């Protein structure tokens, strides 16, 4: 049997500067308004997310880690309302998540999904979808992610790193109260990855709550304020990044941190 979810002391993002407008919205509570209660998801008779209770530190970067197939990306999609749970609920300030609330969220995927348009038109598309028509706003977003010189280039002709920066800029253009990143740097070279990390840091410092999935332990150490470790569809550990990397509470997390490959043989040992 796996351990039940273990909630350690939360880190928060106390010392970080935050945009006044956004931080006012989210920092008046001890937890972020988004939470999951007894969230489960099953497919083909298999329980992939197993009765997860989850809430986040109100600010900063929460990083979800875990082995492949643990359910991290699925949990991200459930939290974002892209998939209906089999049971349990995702709540926002204690209320069911509405479409209006979902419009205050954004997500960046591992493989950037870019429209067959120019860089500028990709940003303009999402701004128009929210009824925002200020032509300068799209330019400012492109500048923010360092793509000003490529504004009129077809988005799909950009390099992988540039495409992901555009996808991130497009998500930030929506000024989301929570930004989900699903392995957004998984297929990027180190320079592109660091460029993305810098934008993520700036977004965090501007007050955007960020929940990201990564397998990159170095990246998690660089960015995470809070770590959520998922194993077999359950949260086995949640707490401050420092505590997680110093002394993981669960054996699965310890194995993950130390780079131990879980096999059927040693999984049995770990779970014993």
């Amino acid at each position: 049997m796996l351990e039940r979810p273990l909630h350690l002391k939360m880190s928060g993002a106390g010392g970080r500067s935050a945009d006044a407008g956004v931080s006012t919205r989210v920092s008046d509570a001890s937890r972020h308004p988004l939470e999951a209660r007894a969230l489960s998801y099953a497919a083909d008779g298999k329980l992939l997310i197993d009765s997860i209770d989850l809430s986040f530190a109100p600010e900063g970067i929460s990083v979800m880690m875990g082995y492949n197939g643990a359910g991290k990306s699925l949990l991200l999609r459930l939290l974002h309302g892209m998939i209906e749970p089999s049971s349990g609920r995702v709540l926002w300030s204690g209320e069911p998540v509405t479409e209006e609330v979902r419009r205050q969220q954004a997500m960046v995927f591992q493989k950037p999904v870019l429209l067959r348009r120019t860089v500028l038109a990709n940003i303009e598309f999402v701004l128009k979808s929210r009824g925002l028509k200020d032509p300068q706003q799209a330019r400012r977003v492109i500048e923010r992610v360092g793509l000003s010189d490529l504004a009129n280039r077809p988005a799909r002709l950009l390099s992988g790193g540039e495409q992901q920066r555009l996808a991130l800029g497009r998500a930030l253009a929506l000024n989301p109260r929570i930004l989900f990143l699903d392995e957004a740097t998984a297929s990027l070279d180190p320079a592109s990855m660091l460029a993305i990390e810098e934008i993520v840091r700036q977004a965090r410092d501007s007050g955007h709550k960020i929940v990201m999935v990564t397998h990159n332990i170095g990246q998690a150490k660089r960015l995470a304020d809070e770590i959520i470790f998922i194993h077999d569809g359950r949260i086995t550990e949640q707490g401050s990044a420092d505590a997680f990397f110093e002394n993981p509470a669960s054996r699965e997390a310890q194995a993950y941190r130390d780079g131990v490959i879980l096999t059927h043989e040693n999984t049995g040992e770990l779970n014993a």
Partner: protein
Amino acid sequence: MQDFAQSFSLALMHIVTLDPDLIEIVGLSLQVSLSATVISCLIGLPVGAFVAVTRFPGRSALIVCMNALMGLPPVVVGLFVYLQLSRAGPLGFLGLLYTPTAMIIAQSILITPIAGALSRQVLEDLHKEYREQFSSLVLSTAAQIRALIWDGRYSLITVALAAFGRSVAEVGAVIIVGGNIDHLTRVMTTAIALETSKGDLTLAMSLGLILLFIALGINALVSTFRLTASRYGYA
């Protein structure tokens, strides 16, 4: 062989000298087929996009029907439209039989399933790629359809060209509802059939050459659009 060569050179002369009868027939053909293409795209593209984006009971059966209707026999469509527009038919009072309008109606019915089924396939493939992003953006179905049609524009132009190619080359429907009346409803395909049966190969060959030229032109356009779309990452 000499007759053929002579007819061929005369046919070329007809084309080079822009023979008025030839121009009239070609003009009417293009007018009818282009009108039918526009109508079929106006109906078929939104329907195809809607089916591509939405899920509803009976969707699979509808897709099977749309695909099957792409192979509609033109003479059957012609007969159906004839029965509607003939004096004894429900739409006989409109007096449209043996007019270009009747031919446009028949061709529109013939090629709308092509526009619908092919655009459904194109847009469904695109939607598979965009689905998660659209879901994340919480876009309405209408907004998704608009975005898909715009982003799939190069592929949809080739769909429209395929529909136009089918309409301009068909003879069965237009000959039944148009009647192949000189200076009124005579188009390239019906004129070729008539002139060949009369033994006047010159006009038939002129029209045949133009029809071939149009077919080649359509294929060249399709290739150009594909290349352009690939070059700019819009494919």
